[in-house]
């Protein structure tokens, strides 16, 4: 298998879907001639031209609403938010028009859009640019939300998202764009990963570390420390998709390990991990040997200071410490 960067895996997904379906259009700020603020779309404007790869003004409510309207006529816009943090200036379009049109029309209208872009902290850009809204958007029925951690997952899920007939919000990560990983060669066939299917990134028997996005990498680091320094065998469950959610994989893992630590870069209040915790208590209560614990981003707006931000986010040190309270 070949190794490619996360950003190139996404790029490959766009390229393949642009080729497959003439209704697919990439849109966003700087996605075309500038090649993308994070170079995720580089080369695609050169290859596909103005019609398929569109630079928009800095006008999120305008162009996202436009994409939603166009999607009603069967266009499949794949729209970039330069940062997911900018969702707030287009919130009405994202939650009223995208999430509710199908429902309010009694199923007459579909909104097959993809919203994508990075949603992460850890880059010292301050509170306005460090939001992780996967739990927020997963709270709106009608939306689908996913957060791939590896290049392969990024490609496979992006392709699935583009083909989905409902709005899918893909939360990427600026700290992952440069990561390399195995991605199947396109010559070996169409590579798709379904939404709603978790992936066990590390098998283990003593505690389940359940996470998504970049937190998966923190969990894998923590699992190595737990194994080498504490003789604890941790299983790492990568949710990949937040909604739909692979509840079976979560419950199966917890029933096996009897302990769960939920790692979540969102804030603790009503974040993704809060939802997972309630499912575990409901469906695996009798299997738990300890309370469900969480490692979330420390409950304050994202701090700028490079000296402290790594400790505000979930990291291996914090995960190990939390695991040791129950194992």
């Amino acid at each position, binding site marked *: 298998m070949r190794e490619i960067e996360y950003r190139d895996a996404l790029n490959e997904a766009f390229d393949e879907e642009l080729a497959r379906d003439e209704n697919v259009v990439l849109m966003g700020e700087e996605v075309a001639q500038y090649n993308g603020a994070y170079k995720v779309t580089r080369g695609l404007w050169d290859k596909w031209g103005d019609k398929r790869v569109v630079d928009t003004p800095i006008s999120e409510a305008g162009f996202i609403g436009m994409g939603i309207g166009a999607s009603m006529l069967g266009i499949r816009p794949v729209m970039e938010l330069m940062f997911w943090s900018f969702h707030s200036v287009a919130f009405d379009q994202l939650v009223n028009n995208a999430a509710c049109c199908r429902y309010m029309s009694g199923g007459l209208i579909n909104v097959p859009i993809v919203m994508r872009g990075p949603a992460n902290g850890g880059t010292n850009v301050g509170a306005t640019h460090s939001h992780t809204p996967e739990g927020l958007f997963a709270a709106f*029925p009608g939306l689908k939300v996913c957060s791939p951690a590896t290049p392969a997952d990024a490609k496979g899920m992006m392709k699935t998202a583009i083909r989905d007939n409902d709005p899918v919000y893909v939360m990427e990560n600026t700290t992952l764009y440069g990561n390399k990983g195995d991605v199947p060669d396109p010559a070996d066939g169409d590579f798709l990963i379904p939404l709603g299917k978790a992936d066990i990134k590390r098998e283990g028997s003593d505690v389940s570390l359940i996470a998504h996005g970049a937190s998966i990498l923190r969990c894998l680091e923590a699992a190595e420390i737990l194994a080498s320094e504490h003789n604890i065998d941790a299983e790492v469950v990568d949710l990949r998709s937040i909604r739909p959610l692979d509840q079976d994989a979560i419950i199966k893992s917890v029933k096996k390990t009897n302990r769960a630590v939920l790692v979540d870069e969102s804030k603790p209040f009503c974040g993704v991990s809060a939802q997972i915790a309630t499912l575990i208590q409901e469906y695996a209560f009798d299997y738990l040997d300890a309370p469900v614990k969480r490692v979330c981003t420390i409950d304050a707006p994202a701090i700028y200071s490079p000296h402290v931000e790594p400790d505000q986010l979930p990291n291996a040190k914090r995960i190990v410490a939390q695991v040791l309270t129950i194992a």
Partner: protein
Amino acid sequence: MRGLFLSDLGQNAAAALVLRPLAEAAMSAPEKSFVMETANSPNHSPLNFAGSPINKTLSAEEKLETFRQMVRIRRFEQAALKNYQKDGTMGGFLHLYIGQESVAVGAASLMGDHDHMITAYRCHAHALAVGMNMNECMAELYGKATGCSKGKGGSMHFFAPDKNFWGGHGIVAGQTPLGLGLGYGLKYRGLEGCALCFLGDGAINQGAFHESLNIAALFGIPVVYVIENNGYSMGTSQKRSSAYKDCLAQRSEAYDMDWDVVNGEDFYEVRAKTHIAMERARKEHKPTILEVMTYRYYGHSVADANHKKYRSPEEIADYKKNHDPINLWRSKLIEEGVLTEESSKTIDTEAKLEATASTKFAEESPAPTIEDITNDVYWETDNNTEASQIGRHFFND
């Protein structure tokens, strides 16, 4: 005021003034006297748009049909109001369009196969004008499963994609980027058509509208924004809600976009000017803002019990007496020999009966079931696809 009517600037502006300052009359006595004088001035009689090309092509039958549509809309809404007040079986809001009928019907009468329409929450008229039937609309107001949105949308959210009608949207100006997108989709697919995006005068101050205007002009999108200016942004008059020089549509100049002001009480003028804007969109991919001066007899919604406080009874009475679009269209058609008093009454009676029948249909229709609540959320789960079996989509207890 650019476009083909450049030479008519003075008269058009005057025709618009007849309506506009009336809305402000309650605010200022001196303005009022100025207005009445302007309105009655023999030097500023409205232009005759009957002779414009798009109106010349109207057959007698087509003219009657537009009249019938306007009457049907009014009778439907009067029945809806009566039903709303009757026994509380109808919930939510009810934003009535009564007084504005010429605008939606005029625009809808110009729509071809590739023209699309979208509007805000005052949407009953647009829905009926594009051909939705009274039964499905009344049933939607009643929250019944037979409603156009299966009882899931309500008064503000009527849709009929098969008739190129895309709602019915509840958030002020939230539909303006969607209208842009309909135009974008048409252009992308190489179809010669346009998107008619309606909004109220209160919506022009929302950011989403300005973002849409910029993109519409920048990308050359075939969209026509129709501001239905009824003078009040809910209970706040135009002067208290919007900063403007001569009129609201003029804001388009900042976006290098064409605009025009339309006297909404004149059905021929609505059609003539809307047609020009639609052709500009279809043929040249250029957007336009039309500001149609019109008036609503009722409050912002039925819940707006104060609507007689922020405007005077005289103002409302004057509009009903002198500017009612249905009365004026009726008179014009009688004058042209297309309609008689008798046939007018027949049309009215039929519309009333149709509205009454729709009430009966709505009352007798079944409500949605509890199970229906989670249908129409996701395409996959509605269609019970393989993908819908993967992962949990709903999180009910």
